[in-house]
Structures are given as C-alpha cells and as structure tokens.
C-alpha cells in the first residue's frame, strides 16, 4: 500500500522546515477539499502531508484596521458569515457563499481556495485513462482544444491550455486589489493578486507565483468605500453546487451619480481571475444605465476567442457583467 507521512505543524517555521526535510512529494494540506479530490483522481500523489490547518493564528479574521485581513486558515464559511464583510464588502461574502456547498465551505480555507486547481474535465480525467493535458503532463498536449470545450476559457487562453481558473473568491479578491501574504524559508513576502496568477502561455502547469515550500499565510484587502457598492454574480448550469459558466465581481466608487472608479473582475471565462480594465475604463466618469453596463460588458470581452462550443460565454459573460454592474449601481442610490 502506498504509504503517506503526515505531520501537523504548529508554526510556519515548523511547517516550512518539515516541508524541506520531507523533500520530493511534500504537500501542505489545510481543509483538504482540493487535495484529497485530486489525490483520488490521481492528479496528486503526495508522499508527505504537512498539515497547516492549525498554525497559530491561521484562522484570524481582522476587519478592524486599515485593511481587511484574512488568515489563510480562516474557513470559507466563517469569512462568508462575517458581519463586517457581509455589510461592507458583499462582493467578498457573496463570492464565498456562492461557492461549493455548505459542507465544503465548513472545511475549506480561504487560503487553500486561492490555490484551487482547474475543473477542466480533461485535466481531471483518470478513471478510465488520462487524456492529454499540458497541466497534468507537460508536453502531452491539450485534449480540450478541439474537444468538448463548452466549459473552457475565452480569455487568456494559449495553444497549450484553455482551462478555466475555477474560483469565485479569487475573482472577488482580484476586483478588490487584494495582496497575498506568503512565507517561506527565505522569509515573508507580499504579492499583489494581479501578479499571483499566471497566464498559461507555454507553461500551463505553472499556475501560481509561489515557490515550492512557501505557504500562503494571509490575504489583505485594502478598505474602500467601493465595498458597499459591490456584488458578485455567478451564472452556472444549476442554481447551486456548480462552478461558474460566467461570473462577475463589481465594486463601484462614486462621485455623485457618476462612477469615479470601477473595480471589475471576471470568473468562469478566463484562464486566471480576470481583471477587466477595459470595462473599468469605460465606466469611469459615467452614469450607470443598462446600455452603458452592456457596453462595459462587451468591452471586457473584446479580445475573447472561442472554440467550438463555448462562444456563448462571450455573450453570457458580457451580460453577466452588465447585470452585476446594474446591481452594484443600485446599491449606490
């Protein structure tokens, strides 16, 4: 039987030292909702698990200072239900409460969630043979291109990969200019979320700007009045318990009835959480109406490119964004 070592770390230092000592095949584990799933599929084959769920302070939620701070080990359910987050930053709360199921949110951490891997069915295949996938086996090709690509991305794709970045929370964090706090053997560092997720390019197996042995310890979100005028809209194949076909995180700072600064990010349509700068630029300085919202939606997808079955995501994505802009706009009144 394949053996597996397991240790529970109490401090970040303990964890990183255990990781270094374990060598090949070491993985950190927190809620386990992604890692166990990928282990069952044979995508992950760890030999050593270092449990970081009970690191000191890992679950800290601090909304009292200049920034909102979420310890990486905070549960999705706890952040989704936090009173300040719900009242002042609905985009964050909604992105969490619309993800997964209550049972999963009770286990999964907000730090682990930003490292969730794609739901591309070719990446996840395995029960009856693994199909070509450059994420899973670099250089093996991409079976999704020319295959059943209804769920694939239309933004940020490459010839090597069209897999969608799956999360909701990372999309909201991207709109809100979050910073990812990381610690590793070389000490702590902060990475703006815009730099945390990589485009697939020729190396789709490299998804995150994080080095082996480093740990995501927290997520900081700058406080902004835009938070109150925010929403996360998620459109999917059923009303709950499904990943997004298209989603939009929108937060608005206003000058009277005009938008001073729009914060917009998209999910379900791109290979990484997708900041929609073109849409933001179009909205800034404008009053919000349906026509303007739809124009912003269309602008966000100006560079989109579809395969055989996913062209609808371009229109759906634009309209989803338009609906989200209208919802956020109503909150400013």
């Amino acid at each position: 039987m394949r053996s597996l070592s397991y240790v529970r770390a109490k401090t970040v230092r303990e964890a990183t030292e255990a990781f270094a000592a374990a060598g090949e095949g070491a993985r950190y584990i927190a809620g386990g909702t992604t890692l166990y799933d990928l282990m069952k599929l044979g995508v992950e084959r760890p030999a050593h698990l270092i449990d970081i769920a009970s690191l000191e302070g890992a679950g800290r939620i601090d909304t009292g200072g200049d920034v909102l701070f979420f310890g990486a080990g905070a549960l999705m359910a706890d952040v989704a239900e936090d009173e300040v987050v719900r009242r002042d930053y609905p985009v964050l709360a909604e992105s969490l409460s619309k993800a997964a199921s209550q049972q999963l949110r009770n286990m999964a951490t907000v730090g682990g969630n930003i490292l969730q891997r794609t739901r591309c069915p070719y990446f996840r295949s395995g029960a009856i043979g693994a199909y070509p996938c450059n994420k899973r086996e670099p250089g093996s090709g991409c079976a999704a291109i020319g295959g059943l690509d209804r769920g694939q991305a239309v933004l940020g794709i490459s010839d090597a990969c069209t897999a969608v970045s799956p999360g909701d929370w990372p999309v909201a964090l991207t709109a809100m200019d979050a910073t990812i706090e990381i610690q590793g053997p070389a000490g702590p560092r902060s990475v703006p979320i815009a730099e945390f997720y990589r485009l697939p390019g020729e190396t789709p197996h490299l998804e995150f700007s994080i080095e082996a042995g480093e740990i995501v310890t927290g997520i900081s979100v700058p406080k902004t009045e835009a938070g109150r005028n925010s929403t996360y809209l998620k459109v999917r194949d059923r009303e709950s318990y499904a990943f997004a076909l298209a989603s939009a995180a929108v937060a608005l700072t206003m000058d009277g009835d005009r938008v001073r600064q729009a914060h917009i990010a998209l999910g379900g349509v791109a290979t990484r959480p997708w900041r929609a700068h073109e849409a933001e630029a179009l909205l800034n300085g404008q009053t919000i109406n349906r026509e303007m919202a739809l124009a912003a939606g269309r602008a966000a997808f100006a560079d989109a490119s579809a395969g055989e079955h996913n062209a609808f995501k371009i229109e759906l994505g634009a309209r989803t964004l338009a609906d989200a802009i209208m919802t956020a706009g109503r909150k400013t009144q």
Partner: protein
Amino acid sequence: MTQERTADRPRIDAYEKVLGRALYAADQPITGLLHAMTVPATIAKGRIEAFDLTAAQNVPGVIRVFTHEDFSQIKTTPAARGAYGRPDKGYQPMTGPVVRHRGEPVALVVAETLEAAIEGAEATKVRYAEEAFSARMEDDLASPESEPERQLSSGDAEAAFASANHRIDVEYLHPQQHHNPIELISTTAAFEDGELRIYEGTQAASAFAGGLAGMMGMDPTRLRGVSPYTGGGFGQKNGIQEQSVLVASAAILLRRPVKLVMPRGQLFHTASYRPRSRHRVRLGADGQGRLLAGLYETVQQNSRYDGFSCDHGANPPRMYGYGAWLGSDRIVRVDTQTPGHQRAPHEHPSSYATECAVDELAEALGMDPVEFRLANDTQSDPITGKPFSSRHLADCLRRGAELFDWNRRMREPGALVAENGDLIGFGVACGSYKGSMTAAVTRLRLFASGRCEIATSGHEMGQGIRSVIAAELIEVLGVDPAKLEIRIGDTGYAPQHITAGSWGTGSAAPAARNAAVKLREELSLLTGSALSEEPVHVQLARTRRPVLEVTVDTIPLGKDAQVIEQLRRGIPSTTGPEYPDFMSFSWIAHFAEIHVETSTGRVRVKRVVSVADCGRVMNRRTAESQVRGGVVWGIGAALREAGETDRRFGGVLNNDLAEYVVPVNADIGAIDVDFIDQPDFKLNMSGVKGLGEVAMVGATAAVVNAVYNATGRRVRHLPIRIEDLL
C-alpha cells in the same frame, strides 16, 4: 378491515433507514473479506496484447491479479450482460483478450485491503492493439441496423397526413443519460451454509442468481442471491453487471469471500445508461383540431452486441385518438457498453418528443394545448381497437388545470412577465406507462403472539414496496406493523421477480392480499365459523395453534401456472399492456410554470402540478414521493442532464456527480401531486396500476413546452441550457 384505503402511513422501514440500520449489499459484515478492484480499459476498442502484472503483484496485500486467462470458463449466456435474454447477444468482459468499449474491465485485482486493491489496479500494465471505433451514432463507424425493431400502424397514415389541414414535421434529440443511483453498484460473494451467497443491490435477485449460476456452470440451487435493499435502482440494477460473475468466480477460485464496489467514474462506462435517440414526429389535424395522423420514426444508439430493444414507438399512439398511425424504431450500433432501461426507459424520451410535437400542433391550430388534448381523448387503443382497462387522463388534465390555475396562461409567448422582468411560461404534457404485472410466490405466517412474517417476491429500492405489502396485510388482517417481518429480495426466502417496469406494486400488492385472504379462509376453517372483528391472531390463539402458514402462487392476468416455474428459474415474464379484453396503462398530466431570466437565459422551474391515474393509491405518502421524484428527473432531463462523450476517446467526460449535472434542491420549486385514485379491478384484485415510471413520463415535455410559452423558442434538443436561450 378498518384502515383507510389510501392511508398516509409512514414508510415501514423509515426509522431503520434514517438511523442507518438498514444494511445494504456492500455493508454486510463478512469475516475474512477480500477486496477487489477492476482495471478499466484505457482504449475504446481493440485487443489485449500483453499484461505486465509484476508491479501489481508486488503491491503488499495483493493476493492475486486475474485476467481473461483466468476466466475463459465463464459462459456467455442469454443472462449475460447486454443479452436481454437473446441467445446471440450479450458479452462478458474478461473472457477473452478483447476490448469492446472504454472502461471495460480487463483485469481484476484482489487484495487484503481496498487500498491495496486500488494500488494494484493502478499498477497493472496492459499493452493494447487499438482499433478504429465510433462511440456516437453520428460518427463514421456507427452501424445502423437495416431493419426496424418495431413498426406499429393503423390506417393509411401517410395519406391522412398529406391531406391534413394542419401539419407539423419536427425532429427532437434526446441525449445519453446516466442513472447515478447514490448506492454504487457492488458485488459481494461469500460462502455460507455450503452455498455461494451473492450480495448485490440488484432489482432481480432470482434472475441474477440463476443467470450467474448458468454462466459459471453451477447448480442454481447452490447459489443464493440477496438484495437486502437497493439504494436507488432506476433500471441500472436490473441485470447482471460487468463485474458480478468476475467477483463470484474470483471468490470460488480463491475460496474466500470477495467484495467489489465499482467506483462512480467507472460506472459511467460499465453500467447501463439511457442511450441517445432521435425522434422525427409528423402530426396532422383537421380544421376542427381532430388528430388525423401521426407518423413517428425513432433511432436509438445501441452497443455492437446488445439485445436492448428500441421501444419508443410503443406508447405514443395510445395517447390520443389518432385517425391513423405509422411508427418505426431503429437502432444504430456503436462501440460503447450496453445501454439499458432507465426510469421510464422509452416512454420518457418518446413522450418528450411527441408531447412537445402535440404542443407545436396545438399552437399551429391556435388551440389551447389542454383543450386540444381533451378534444382528442379516446377510450380505446387506436392500434388494437381494444378498450383501456381504465383511462382517466381527461380527469387528470381537468383537475391539474384547475389546481394549476391554467386559465392564467397567455397564448402569446412572452406575454406573461414577472415583477422582476422574467418571462413566465406555462406548459402542459401527458404521459402513460403500461400496466404490467408479474408472478409472485408468497409464504405468510401468522403467530398467535401477533407476530406476522411474509416472504414474497419483490425488491425494496426506495419506492416503498415493503410499505405496500404492509398496507395489504394491515388492511386484510389488521396486523400490527411493529410485529410484521417482510422478507423480500432474497432467493433464500422466495423466488424473486425482476422489480422494474412499474409492476412492483401491481404484483406485490395482489400477492400480499391473496395470501392474507387465504389465511383468513384457513383460519375460518380452523375456527369453524366466520371470523369476528377481533384481531386475527387472537382468534388463532383460541384454536391453540401457535402458528398458521399459507403459501400462495399469484399468477397475473392472462398467464398460467408456467410463470411460477419461470419465476423459480429466474426467467422474467411480465404481462401487459395488452390483455385479452383490454389494454392497460397508467396515465398522468403534468403542468409546469417556468421563469426565464431575460439577460442570461437562466430557466427556473417555479412549480409543477402533476395528477396521476395509477388505479388505487396504496399509500399516499410513498405515492406522492414517487411522483415528486419522477418530476425532479423530468426537470433534470429538460434542463440539466447529459452524458458527454468525446468522440476521439469514446469515454464519458463528465463521469462524476459534480460534472454530470443533476438538479439540486435550489433547482426545484413546488411540486404538487394529486391522484384520481379510482381502482382498476380489471387488472388485479388490489386495483392498482403502476406509478413509479409514469410519474416521470411527460414531465420533461411540460417544462420544454413552458419554455416555449415564455420565450417563443422551440428548442428541440435536451437539455435546454443557457446558450440555447441567450
């Protein structure tokens, strides 16, 4: 006999199940149990050239790795996978070096632990010689059969259609679907009391045990089939599974008990499924809205070797008073595992196509679709000319329309708009399912203590058959449900029929009633007088006998004693829908209200009203539950479900419960159920027709027709998804 006829009684096994005390097939505590795991083929078609088993055999805990070389003695018989009783059909994996479909088991690893079996299976290396294949009926190597499976006709339909004032000619596509019962399919082979005992959550324990014995060359009396509970069957657990005989044979070869629980990812490739089908419907009506002609041609995907029939054409001509009818059903063979019966197997896809087409014709005529159906009601079957044993479809439509408030429907699509801007659509559709029965052997024992034991034919799959059996015994004998023991699904107690096709209640209820009535007669002979109102066990006690036992064979209408012998040998035999003097069907009308979000095309089913004519309602609670479940499936079929096959690989891509999208609670609004509840004593002494299957028939069409009413769009494929309405 004081109980209310359609009592709303709790399920007799509700507490057992809720408390987790009900042991399913894979839960049996068996000493020394070994665990097995299959190695699935990673090609869609070809031959096995070589195995490298070294790594697998070296996994600590692995006892043995079986390949086709170990199982060549297994016979492919008419009971084998996919044969459906036909002698020249069917197949059994691992009896030769052949791969017929992706995911087919090519090796079986048996180990001391499940983990070792899984690791051994993953370490098993197979070299294949691949061959070209087609796994979808639209692809190049798909082979259409030259002759239709079935043709039904009445009158000159082509001529009647040609002369009709109003005509429609449409094609509907139904996708592949997978049953996905929550209880995974498992096989456990153990040795007890000198016999081989197979625990499997099958819907047909006798056919299963007899079939396995035949395939293994065993004396059938030395093999006992036990299906303690079935955690959802829906037709996927009708037959012998791909792994059943392999596990049984492995146990015999190793002389130790072996268990295999097939993982869901593999079940999408080893278990049966509802095959993809196309339906061309041509309907013609005169200026007054009278149906003159129906022409219905269907094509269904099958595997290369299976004997699964294509029966789409059986029900639609019976729905309305068609002046003339012509139907044909054809099959196309592809390289997949065998498809099979999935709840309302052909009636669901055919009702989808034809009930949507009826909606299209009503629209073309400018008639309300309820009025159009009522105007074409019939009390006799257009094909045979025989009357129906009972048909209250018009009452289902009228009562449903009233409960639903159908009068609020606007004929103009999109005319009804919700406060939030969503378009509101109302849809209606009807369904039918044949009234069938099968034989049963029942042994009933009444103890003077009040205890009562019944062993009879039938399987509990959540539909509530135990509660139905209990209801008859409570009504006829007044027994205490707490002192009642019901033994079903076990060939050790009674021969077991295949519990499917909505004949479970129509067979088990008369069987239980028959036995209970006979017991009263015997008791009356013992006491020497007519029975009093006192509890029967008290009257028995007075005779100073500790126990009274009766055994009764229940032979369904139109059959003779030979069916009992067939039942004992595990050979399925059922009746209906045609009987000497009539045709028998259950009927249903569904009404659906859906809302469409205009910006995103999202469809939400707000409410459904379903009114069924299933004869006598045995238990209001389980009956309503069955209809709700059927409607949920109908909604899922309309808006959610499809197995997606990549033609390059021949596998189902969305082979798990996360990606194979079935409805969740948030997808389901109100489902209100009502019954006509008129017993049909022409069919049997309990007055029951079937319900489990008819519940789903037509539900999808009601939703699809509502989508048209909201949007003006006729989407002629399933599921209707966001991109179809954007």
